[in-house]
């Protein structure tokens, strides 16, 4: 049975055996992890997850090209995922194809349907990460996206709208990674298509930091909550952005260069959790576990969950 009324299921970066130690720090809080990294997790990680009752998914991604463009490619990809689940110990697959050409919308939907059916047949689960698309941002989804929301709803057990990268710092000059009004719209959009019980709200565990010097190019995604975490930062000024519901800082770095930080912290997370509460979303995720700060954990621990929402089925029921 789920340990809490709202499931906590972040993405988890596996690097080496130290990752097991990292997992244990909050193992009691976790319902599941979606694992990514260059290395195959050690058997010890899966054993630890079993011990603490933590579900595991394998995060997979790419552009989709070469993965499911043809029936033969799709077959090979599905076979690889089935092997991952049956031989390695993953409880399922978490799809994160993010830059698929729209021409692959139908092959992707077919691939998803087949993958879902075959995973379910061996008692495994299918999850998917979807963009924070919103009508306010993109117009009708069929004009740009490679997603078929109805196919996702039918095939997947979990749908994770990524409520971050509202402004993707490495390609912009200013702006936060998420904003309350936008995140709410993202969830409203996906709730039109996906049954509530399958919905996750995926939150950022990083802020956006920019130099304000002209020609400074683009910004950085950072996992500090406050400029004081940066060595040598000084002349820090603060403002609460009431629409975005997050803390904003203007400061000088150690070299005296001006910067701004749109923070992700306890307060911004607490505000986003109000959306989880308002829509009765049954589960949340973070990108990603290792960058979740003490402030984020504090907001989570104080979050009361959702009164009245039925508990999810036990893991064995999947």
């Amino acid at each position, binding site marked *: 049975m789920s340990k809490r009324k709202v499931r906590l299921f972040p993405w988890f970066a596996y690097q080496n055996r130290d990752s097991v130690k990292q997992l244990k720090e909050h193992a009691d809080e976790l319902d599941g992890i979606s694992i990514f990294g260059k290395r195959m997790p050690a058997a010890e990680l899966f054993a630890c997850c079993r011990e603490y009752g933590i579900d595991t998914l394998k995060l997979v991604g790419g552009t989709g090209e070469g993965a499911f463009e043809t029936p033969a490619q799709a077959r090979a990809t599905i076979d690889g995922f089935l092997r991952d689940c049956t031989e390695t110990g993953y409880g399922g697959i978490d799809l994160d194809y993010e830059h698929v050409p729209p021409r692959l919308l139908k092959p992707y939907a077919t691939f998803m349907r087949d993958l879902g059916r075959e995973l379910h047949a061996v008692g495994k689960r299918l999850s998917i990460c979807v963009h924070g698309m*919103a009508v306010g941002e993109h117009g009708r989804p069929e004009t740009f996206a490679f997603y078929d929301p109805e196919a996702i709803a039918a095939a997947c057990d979990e749908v994770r709208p990524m409520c971050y990268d509202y402004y993707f710092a490495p390609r912009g*000059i200013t702006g936060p990674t998420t904003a309350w*009004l936008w995140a*709410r719209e993202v969830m409203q959009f996906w709730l039109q298509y996906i049954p509530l019980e399958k919905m996750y709200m995926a939150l950022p565990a990083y802020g956006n930091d920019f130099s304000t010097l002209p020609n400074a190019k683009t910004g950085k995604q950072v996992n500090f909550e406050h400029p004081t975490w940066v060595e040598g930062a000084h002349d820090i000024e603060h403002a609460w952005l009431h629409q975005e519901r997050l803390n904003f800082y*203007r400061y000088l770095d150690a070299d005296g260069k001006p910067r701004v930080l749109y923070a992700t912290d306890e307060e911004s997370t607490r505000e986003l959790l109000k959306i989880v509460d308002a829509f009765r979303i049954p589960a949340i995720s973070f990108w990603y576990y290792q960058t979740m700060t003490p402030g984020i954990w504090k907001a989570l621990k104080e979050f009361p969950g959702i009164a009245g929402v039925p508990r999810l089925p036990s893991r064995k029921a999947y």
Partner: protein
Amino acid sequence: MAKTKRKRLLTPWFPYQNAGSIKLLRDHADVINGISIFGKTPSPEFFACCRERDIDTLLLVGGKASSFDTPEHARATLDGYLKACTEDGYGGIDLDFEHVTPDYTDAYTVFLRDTAKELHAIGKRLSICVGCYPLAQHGRPSRVHFFEPEVIGECCDEVRVMCYDLYYAPHCLLGPTSSFPWARDGMRFWLQYVSKEKLIMGLPAYGNDYDMSPGAGFGWQVNFEHPSEIVMSHAIESFWLHYERLNVYRYLNHERHTHIHYASDGKSTQHHLTTVEDLDLGGISFWHYGTITPSMWQVVYYFLRGK
């Protein structure tokens, strides 16, 4: 087609300064349905110009709770409004009380009802300026406001939603004066209480500009669209904020201080106008007429006339 029969109205706030204001008005008189006047009391020639060109006039009035907190104060204020309408020639009153505490909600309700009744009795109109209050910003409106939205819907002939000052530059470090989703959310809020024909979407004719140097203090409201309009600005970079639907610029000023400028321009205005169309609102206004830029006029003309 007569202007008053057009589907959407254009009724900007108008700063009256002197006889030259008549010329300013004439520049766009053919698309204007009304103006809400602030500044000096206009000359009879100005009112004559408005009548001749079928432009309604409102007197923009503000004030504190002391304008209506007792029956005597309310009576005196109301008498002043009636006098302005009957003696000066205004077609009505545009209320702009903005910083009153919720303690005066009941008194303001009585004042609104009495003002509407007495203005209507002499053939004049009551308009009101209200804030853009989506839940994202303020939560339930009754917690922070001094008026009842239902009463406003009942009493007023025009409700002008000020879809600006989302971030009030003179009191903050960074942020635009308006944004597409915020303004749309605000208009949806008011549609719950006010019939769409009465709703006027108030748009900004100014942007927000900030010196990003620590210690530089708060920002400025500015009426340039692009940093290139500032003498000796340089190293200008632009970025389209896809969700807010506006242009932001990073540039150096003449002292080589980095500035961030959130623009209000033709493009941002055009996106706001889609909200007017989508929600089928009664019309638009601008704060204020004197700072509407050529590119804004261009999209407004196209919006109103299709060319």
